[in-house]
C-alpha cells in the first residue's frame, strides 16, 4: 500500500488543461496537475492514503464538515477549469492508486469521454427549483359567518373545508407553474435532468421543494433562461422558483447507458 493516492477531478481535451490547473489548489492544499493519455487530459492531485484511502475516505465523507470541505474543493477545481475549457466533472472522491490508474482509465474510456465533451461544449448547467409554501399562499376569502349564527361544530367543519380548498388551490397553482416552467425552460435548454427534490437538514426553505431540475443551456443564454423560468411564478402566491448556476454541466456528464 503506497502512502499516496491520486485524486481525479475532471477530464478534458489537452489544450488549455495545463492553464486550467495552474494555481488551482486541490484536496488538502495540494497543487492540481495534469495527466495525459489517449488524446485526453485529467486534472488530478496527490492525496494521502491516510485521508483518501478506504478508511480515511469513509471517515471524511461521513463527517458533514469534512464532506463539505472535500466537495467544495472538488467543485473549486472543476469550476476553475470550466472557465477555461470544457471539462467532464468526475464524481466526488474518484480516487486512483496512482497516475497509471488514471491513464489506464483514460485509455479505456477515451472515446466515450471525447463524445461527451463534444456534446457539452458551449453549454453550462442551470438549476431550477420550484417550491410550494403554504405559509405564503393567500387563503381563499372566508365567507363572513356571524359567530353566533353557527354552532362551534359547523364552524370547525367550515374551517376545515376552507383549509382543504386552499390546499387544493395551492396544489393546482404549483402544478401550473411546474408545467409552465418546464415549457419555458425547454425552449432554451438542450437537455434536462430531474434530481430528487431536496429535503432533510441541508434543504433550505421556506416551503417544500417540489421539483429540482438541472438544465443544460447554451452559454450566453443564462439571463434569458433565468427570466423565462422565473416568470411563471410571478404573482402566484405560495409558489417560488429558485435558479442556481451557472454550473459546470455536472448533471449532464453522465454516460447514456448508465
Amino acid at each position, binding site marked *: 500500500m503506497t502512502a499516496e493516492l491520486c485524486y481525479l477531478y475532471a477530464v478534458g481535451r489537452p489544450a488549455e488543461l495545463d492553464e486550467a490547473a495552474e494555481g488551482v489548489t486541490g484536496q488538502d492544499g495540494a497543487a492540481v496537475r495534469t495527466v495525459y493519455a489517449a488524446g485526453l487530459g485529467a486534472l488530478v492531485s496527490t492525496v494521502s492514503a491516510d485521508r483518501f484511502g478506504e478508511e480515511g475516505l469513509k471517515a471524511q465523507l461521513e463527517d458533514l464538515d469534512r464532506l463539505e470541505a472535500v466537495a*467544495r474543493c472538488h467543485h473549486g477545481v472543476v469550476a476553475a477549469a470550466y*472557465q477555461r475549457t470544457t471539462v467532464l466533472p468526475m464524481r466526488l472522491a474518484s480516487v486512483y492508486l496512482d497516475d497509471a*490508474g488514471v491513464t489506464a482509465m483514460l485509455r479505456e474510456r477515451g472515446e466515450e469521454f471525447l463524445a461527451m465533451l463534444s456534446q457539452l461544449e*458551449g453549454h453550462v448547467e442551470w438549476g431550477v427549483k420550484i417550491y410550494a409554501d403554504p405559509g405564503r399562499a393567500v387563503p381563499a376569502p372566508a365567507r363572513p359567518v356571524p359567530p353566533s349564527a353557527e354552532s362551534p361544530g359547523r364552524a370547525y367543519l367550515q374551517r376545515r373545508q376552507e383549509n382543504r380548498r386552499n390546499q387544493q388551490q395551492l396544489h393546482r397553482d404549483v402544478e401550473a407553474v411546474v408545467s409552465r416552467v418546464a415549457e419555458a425552460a425547454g425552449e432554451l435548454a438542450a437537455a434536462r*435532468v430531474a434530481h*430528487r427534490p431536496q429535503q432533510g437538514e441541508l434543504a433550505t426553505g421556506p416551503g417544500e421543494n417540489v*421539483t429540482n431540475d438541472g438544465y443544460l443551456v447554451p452559454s450566453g443564454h443564462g439571463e434569458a433562461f433565468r427570466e423565462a423560468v422565473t416568470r411563471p411564478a410571478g404573482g402566484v402566491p405560495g409558489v417560488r422558483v429558485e435558479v442556481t448556476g451557472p454550473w459546470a454541466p*455536472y448533471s449532464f456528464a453522465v454516460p447514456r447507458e448508465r
Partner: protein
Amino acid sequence: MSAERPAAAEGFPHDLRTPAELEPVEALAGRQVALIDLLDRLLNGGAVLTGDLVLSIADVDLVRINLRAVIHSITPDDPAPW
C-alpha cells in the same frame, strides 16, 4: 411531481463557443454555492463515475458504498435510489 431519476440527456445542439467567452468569469467560480445543490450534482446526480471500471480488488469502489450512508443521513426520509 416530476422526480424520476435523470431522464437521459438528449438532443444536444453543437455549439463550439467556450463558456468563458460567453459567461462572466466570476459566475462559475468564487461563489459560495449551497452545499445541498452541490451534493445533488456531485453525488446524487451527474458527474462521471469512473473507478468501478478501473480499479481492481485493492481499490474497491468503496466510495460509492459509503456515500450511500452519507446521503442517507442527509435525507433520512428519502433514501437514495441507488
